[in-house]
């Protein structure tokens, strides 16, 4: 099991478009991918969009990312990269 702290950096936070990208990315891997708000507010299965949206993670939200399974290394790498790059969002003003 791998665990890492991440911060949502894109302007709109984990809104529908970013959440969709996250769910699509997590869905590629066999490992389970979990996100939990650092403030303990909510836990989400990163393969469920309804659950990810309920994190209500705005910009600046700290999340702890837990990945467990046969391809956990790759999954962790891909999900981290996506979050840290602000979901590839062009930086709007």
């Amino acid at each position, binding site marked *: 099991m791998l665990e890492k702290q991440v911060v949502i950096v894109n302007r*709109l936070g*984990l*809104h529908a478009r970013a959440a*969709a990208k996250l769910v699509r990315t997590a869905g590629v891997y066999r490992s389970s991918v979990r996100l939990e708000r650092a403030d303990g507010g909510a836990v989400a299965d990163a393969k469920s*969009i309804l*659950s990810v949206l309920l994190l209500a993670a705005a910009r600046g939200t700290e999340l702890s990312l837990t990945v467990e399974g046969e391809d956990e290394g790759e999954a962790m790498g891909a999900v981290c990269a996506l979050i840290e790059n602000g979901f590839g969002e062009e930086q709007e003003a």
Partner: protein
Amino acid sequence: MSRRAKIEKHEIRWRGVAVSEGVAAGRVLRIHTGGRGNIYRATLDPDDLKREVRRFQAAVRLSRRQLLAIKRRAEVALGAEHAYIFDAQLLMLEDRKLLDEVEDYIRQECANAEWAVKVASDKLLAVYAEIKDDYLRERSSDIEDVTRRLLVALSGEAQSRRLTEDAIVVAEELLPSSAAELDFSHVRAIASDAGGWTSHTAIIARGLGIPAIVGLRDLYRHARTGDEIVIDAGRGEVVLHPTGATVEHFTEARKLVHAGAGVATDGGGVPLLTTDGVEIILRANVELPPEYEGVRRYGARGIGLFRSEFLFTQRGGAPTEDEQCAAYTEIAALAGADGAKVRLFDLGGDKQHNTGEFETAERNPALGLRAIRYSFQHEDMLRTQVRALMRAAATGRLDVVLPMISDVSEVRRARRIIEEERARLGAEGHATGELKIGAMIEVPAAVMVADQLAREVDFFSLGTNDLVQYLLAVDRSNDEVAGWFRTLHPAVLQSIKRTIEAAGGAGIPAIVCGEMAATPAYALVLVGLGARVLSMAAAAMPRVRRTLARVDAASAREVANLCLDSATADDAEETVRAELGGRWPHLFSPENLPAAKSGE
């Protein structure tokens, strides 16, 4: 209209309110609007539960296929950027959290799939309502959309959305959201049970230049997708299961209509002058992308009214600043040198849009939180919209229209917000263009204080549909009081005149952009009241142009003055019939004039 007749497929006729012109024959395409109101609960036999779960899974697959198709279409029409919204909905249909919940409910409660979907969706919506973040809370509109789509799929009517070449849309009522989904290039005509002259169905149909009849009461219940049907908007008549002779009769009628339209398409690009040399400017009202083509084709002098709330329904939620900026840039390019007047979102009230809000029914929606009031209440949305407008105005000429203004305080408040955002955009390094600010005059109070308003805005837009509704206290979507919706009521004419004079006194333009301007006889009266700029569905421009080019403004003023002196709407209509028919018999045959009121 007996049940027996239907089974034997005898010809059945309906009479309704024709809201646009033309004749069409084709096959029924029933559009189910997927209301959630009448979902029933059934208790199933335990042996049937497996089948019920499979039925639900089939509905999910069907919904997925539809969404993928819509997404592909949106990608082509709007670019990949805009199609993302459907991604979220697609993922919801793959979400085990939702699917398991529905399936478990069916199995554990022996419930029918419709009920299980409703329960699961209500539960989700309740959780989303708790989210503190506005933007994310709005995702509830995606859940609503997905739920509605699943319910339609379960009802088995979903295949009907595949359009054949000769589709005639039959619906209880056409909502903006279903309108956004249809490929209107294949729709030949529209017939709906509900709705009046100014309903959304009517406005869409006139914009597309296709025949439409509304107020047909129970056509939807009798018609089945694939049935043969004929629509004659000239006579307000619909015939289901027409006989060969009937079809032939209507085909002849259509030839006549088409012959008339051929003459009508010329004349664009040349200034429109009355015979005594008064220039009248015709601009286009635009809402749906399929209408864009008509702006150039019919020679519009720019766009007189862009109803921006379509951007909401199209996307299923609040469009972002960049998305709006792209849309307004396209509108400005389409309008060219004459520019486009963009009305701020007219949300709330009778306009049912996915604003992400839960529908808390207002007792008097038309008098409730709508238009500019709604925008002030949702200031972030308002700021995003004006930012997008100013950025797009850097690429072409755009003006903004503030809907439902009742006095100058609202104009000042909107102007302050616009200036704040202009400063902010400048500081952020964005180019902005000038944005003239106009007031929509549709609340009677605004007419009374038109002189004061005229000093603080750059132009007036007269919205005659709502003005009639508010002035005469008639709900424009309620068939029961349709008889009281009188465009030629002297109070309406007095208000229009007063507004135009107030604009003239302050030296600002007044543009009349309600549906009234699209009817040649009424357009003539408007010119007589002093209107010089008319905005209408592009498809209506040829016939209005043809009429106005053959009359003189001085006579139009005489007719208008006679109408202003009338005591009742009946008198004013009679005056129009007598005067127009007498002065210009070659232009106004009896069927081109408002019908004499029947004795009933």
